[in-house]
């Protein structure tokens, strides 16, 4: 069968023929020749539209590192949700799992229809949903920007995982707009749109983004050395 997964995949951009490098766990690969982004899915490289966003930092200087974010389109005609008041004065104990008949003061709301993009970190980090939510709020993806020639670090989060995490980020946003969110009938529908590169001034700011510490994607065992080499970072001895 042709559709079976190939044993070996050549990490080469099929648009311009340039080879792409990456670490062992990388799923997202960036071609610095034609500035295209590829995701390894079932042993095949699949191209995704590439976007960039300016670094959130106001500091001067070019970013040291561009980290990949999946752009996921969230669309919903409106979701039925239940919202509770901030305080319930009932001295009675409630069931452990959600039971709408157990509470009296639940308010039923249908959310506004929405269709928007959510940024999902494609790398490993401590609070991915919160970072994704902040990047979604503050950054706008642009497709015709002058992408720096510096390579984009690879991502380890698959497209499918990004779609499910986008649902969580959308729910965080929904909860901000509806304090006391108790239950939602469904998660928003999520579809991959592309990959966005966000620049970080790593050396100047440390591993920080909007006050949240980033855990670099390759902190396991020997991969740390490979990432340091990849970024040309100078690490003091000892």
């Amino acid at each position, binding site marked *: 069968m042709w559709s079976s997964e190939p044993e070996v995949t*050549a990490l080469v951009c099929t648009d311009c023929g340039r080879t792409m490098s990456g670490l062992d766990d990388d799923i997202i690969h960036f071609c610095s020749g034609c500035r295209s982004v590829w995701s390894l899915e079932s042993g095949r490289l699949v191209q995704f539209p590439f976007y960039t966003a300016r670094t959130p930092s106001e500091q001067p200087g070019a970013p040291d590192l561009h980290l990949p974010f999946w752009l996921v389109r969230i669309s919903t005609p409106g979701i039925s949700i239940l919202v509770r008041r901030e305080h*319930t004065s009932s*001295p009675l104990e409630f*069931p452990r799992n959600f039971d709408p008949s157990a509470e009296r003061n639940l308010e039923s709301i249908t959310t506004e229809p929405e269709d928007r993009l959510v940024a999902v970190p494609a790398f490993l980090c*401590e609070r991915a949903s919160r970072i994704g939510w902040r990047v979604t709020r503050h950054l706008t993806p642009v497709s015709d920007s002058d992408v720096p020639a510096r390579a984009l670090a690879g991502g380890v*989060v698959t497209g499918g995982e990004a779609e499910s995490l986008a649902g969580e980020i959308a729910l*965080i946003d929904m909860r901000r707009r509806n304090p006391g969110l*108790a239950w939602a009938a469904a998660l928003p529908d999520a579809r991959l749109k592309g990959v966005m590169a966000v620049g970080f001034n790593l050396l100047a700011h440390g591993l920080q983004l909007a006050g949240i510490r980033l855990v670099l994607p390759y902190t396991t065992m020997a991969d740390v050395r490979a990432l340091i080499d990849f970024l040309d970072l100078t690490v003091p001895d000892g």
Partner: protein
Amino acid sequence: MKSSRALSCPSCAGPLSLPDGEIQGRCGHCGMPVRINGRVKRFIMKSSLDGTGALRTVRRMLCDRNTRRGALSRAKVDRPRLFYVPFWHVSAQIHGFASGLDPVWEEQEIQVAVDTDGNRHKVPSSGVTRMVRFRKGADSAFREIAFRSSLNMSAADLEPLGIPGLDEDAQLSIDGLGIQRTILPDGLEPLDRKPASEGIVVDPSVPLSQALAGADRYFSRLADGASGGLEQRWSSYAVTGRRVRLIFYPLWIVGFECDGRRYHVVLDGESGRAVRGILPGRSRDLNVLSAIVASIWALIPPLFLAVAASDGPMSGNAAAFIKCLPGILAALAVAAAGTWKLLGILDSISGKGSDVVI
């Protein structure tokens, strides 16, 4: 132990040879970077213990005071064998949230009713109070779930060695083993770069899909734990960035024969400590001791009677014999009771297992 698998380069169709532990590399002919699909990166923990060290450890154990005396001189110890046993290491990050009601409690000091007149008529006492916790209500809660976790699972059955398997349900740690359910030892090296010079690398028998399913169950349990204490809870989370590694951990197995029986000891190759094993116990020594004690005890009544018959009250003087009879009967009763007690002790000693299990 170094092994390789021939594949063809998708670019130049030349033979592509990468070590087993590698999942990425370059074609030796055209230099094309390639990725091997379906492979898992492998790491190995080098054994800090060598064969001589393993033998020395077992010899030391055979000299231990809990093991049979002289076992070391009688034991025929085999050549120690080093096995690299596989463990799946699955790591992931879990993000989501849990909403629900967080109960609010309030403490109040109340007077305690006491029975002052002894007629079971209790009245509130002004001096005796105690703190009581009342449920006041509940607050709407929204908790963020955000953590990274990892799990090590046995990729081969180690039960025949007496080592319990590690999995998502394992509650107990394995005593003496450097690799635990969530802990990886320091010093792991990629398997491809420094292959082990000696030892047998055990192939995993637990499929990767089973390990991933077990890890997902474990991560789900951890995520559910984030909403602990909440009522009316509703949670949602996503497991992302799953990464799998295959870790080979060194275990030395030293077998030996002693007094016609086979024994074995499993040593941790990293720490050098004994993980599991069976050694000849001291019960045989105790049996010999029991027999000696029983023989001495058995000789006491006849000796006593012989002495009594020759010089004592039983030598012919009937009046003296009658006078001493209560004493003799008491001595015999004490001897009988002592014999009964001694038999119990000897029985408990001989009932003990003959081996020392580590």
